[in-house]
């Protein structure tokens, strides 16, 4: 960590009391060219995905996981039934693929489900025992009744006075510096 020169603050956090105000602030911030931004809300706001330009790539990983699972199931059964331990069952050929389909289906679901759970955790950056936002006392309200919008100090356009002025124009109920 020593190599990285830390900015003294993590970012600037604005608090809103309505979801519409949060969505509007996010829209303005994107329009103003800020890219390292984050929105926090106690409930899902579908409009935010589009405004923040969030792309969910998890479905593709889940599909890839499912296909991997299917191929794994096929390979496992091919190996046991044809190569390693061929067994005569009612005179059927070693490669009796109809019997393989059900286990292949199961491994498809298994791999896809595990990819979904762990992919979600990894892409969300969880578990995360520490986050600079925890320094802000009022941020606990993000799980209950308040809506927060953060512009991070890492943003290339970040300049404390101008960001503060920009956020103030969005009429938040409060603005706080988030220490790093």
């Amino acid at each position: 960590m020593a190599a990285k020169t830390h900015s003294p603050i993590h970012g600037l956090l604005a608090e809103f009391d309505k979801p519409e105000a949060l969505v509007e602030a996010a829209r303005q911030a994107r329009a103003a060219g800020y890219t390292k931004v984050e929105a926090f809300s106690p409930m899902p706001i579908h409009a935010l995905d589009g405004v923040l330009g969030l792309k969910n790539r998890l479905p593709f990983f889940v599909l890839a996981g499912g296909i991997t699972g299917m191929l794994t199931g096929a390979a496992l059964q091919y190996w046991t039934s044809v190569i390693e331990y061929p067994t005569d069952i009612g005179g059927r050929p070693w490669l009796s693929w109809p019997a393989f389909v059900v286990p292949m289906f199961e491994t498809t679901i298994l791999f896809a489900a595990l990819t979904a759970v762990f992919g979600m955790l990894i892409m969300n950056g969880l578990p995360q025992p520490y986050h600079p936002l925890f320094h802000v006392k009022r941020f606990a309200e993000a799980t209950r009744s308040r809506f927060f919008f953060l512009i991070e100090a890492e943003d290339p356009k970040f300049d404390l006075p101008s960001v503060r002025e920009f956020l103030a124009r969005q009429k938040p109920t409060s603005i706080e510096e988030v220490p790093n």
Partner: protein
Amino acid sequence: MNNDLRSKLDRIQRTALVVGALGLLLVAWGFVSDRGQFYRSYLFAFTCVAMFGLGSLALTMIHYLTGGFWGLAIRRQLEAGIRTLPLVGLMFVPVALAIVTQPEPGAAAAHGEHGLAGNYWLYPWTDHALVASDHLLHHKEPWLNVNGFLGRTILYFVIWLAMGFGILRAARKFDETGDPAAEKRAKYISGPGVLIFALTITGAAFDWMMSLDPKWYSTMYGVIYMVGCGLAAMAFSVVFTSWVKDHEPYPAFAKGPLFHDLGTLMFAMTMLWAYTSFSQGLIIWSGNIAEETPWYLVRAETSWQIVLIALAVLHFALPFFLLLMRRIKRDASFVVPVALLLLVMRHVDMYWQVVPVFHPTALAPHWMDFAAPVGLGGLWLAFFLNRFKAHPVTSPRHDTAVQAALGHAHH
């Protein structure tokens, strides 16, 4: 209903009626020139067209139990689908004719995977001499006999009509008075109704289709037909919604999210169809006994195999991957072609289920195999549109429910 929508539906209805009448005319000529082939093609066409009326009834009952935006949005078309059931019942008459009559001796049929030679149009068990000489058919006679078959089919239709029109009456009363007891009555019919429907349609599938080869049996058979009915009605709903989506009151809700919901349900039923169809094959393949396997030997080891491969690819794999994608489901211009493909494949599936028993050595399509479904389908569609237009699309209470569900489902 506004005039734009009415004239558009009038146009479709006219086309359907003309095309259907042409098909029926051809088939009527077939009745005179080649009666055996007529009955075979007609039975196939009947099992296809029945799917849409029966599927509408099933989806309506399921929706009364589960609720949800999708079902409210397509309720009017499902109700029109239920109103076609009397016509479907009427369409059974030629099949009944094939059971109460017999061909001239000498024009005897010998179809079936088990090669049951005898004097019958469709069902080997209608030939008394054959039944008397075949121990297994004789043993099954208490169930498979002419009066029992006709009585059961009449009973099935009476039950379906009673449930369907009972729900329609309760729904209309709710629309007119807002009486919550009326809507509750529709739900009370639907609860046991779903169970009764599953039992009756299983019986119907066993009678109409499975008994074509009275020595073959599969307990899964009824479920496959039932799922096929639901899928056919759902795919038709997608197509119909695309016809009406630009006309009041549909633009308010017949948009991306609705097509997404219908597409997802179509996806689920496509998977269920594949699951049940494959399971039946897997069970019979695993059991590997001489009573059961001939059904699949005919359908998978002769030139009928082409149809089986087409089903696997076009009835399952392709729609599966297409409907996996949200962008396709949300866009009417993408999801409607998928629904049309599934509608065609529903017919191909019924063809593969019903017809090979008559041509067990090779795939041998006859022109009546095309004319009959076009004739019955066209007539059904025209009647469906006639019924749809005869009843109000909107009612204040229905609109409120749609709006509430819309707000709830999609922000």
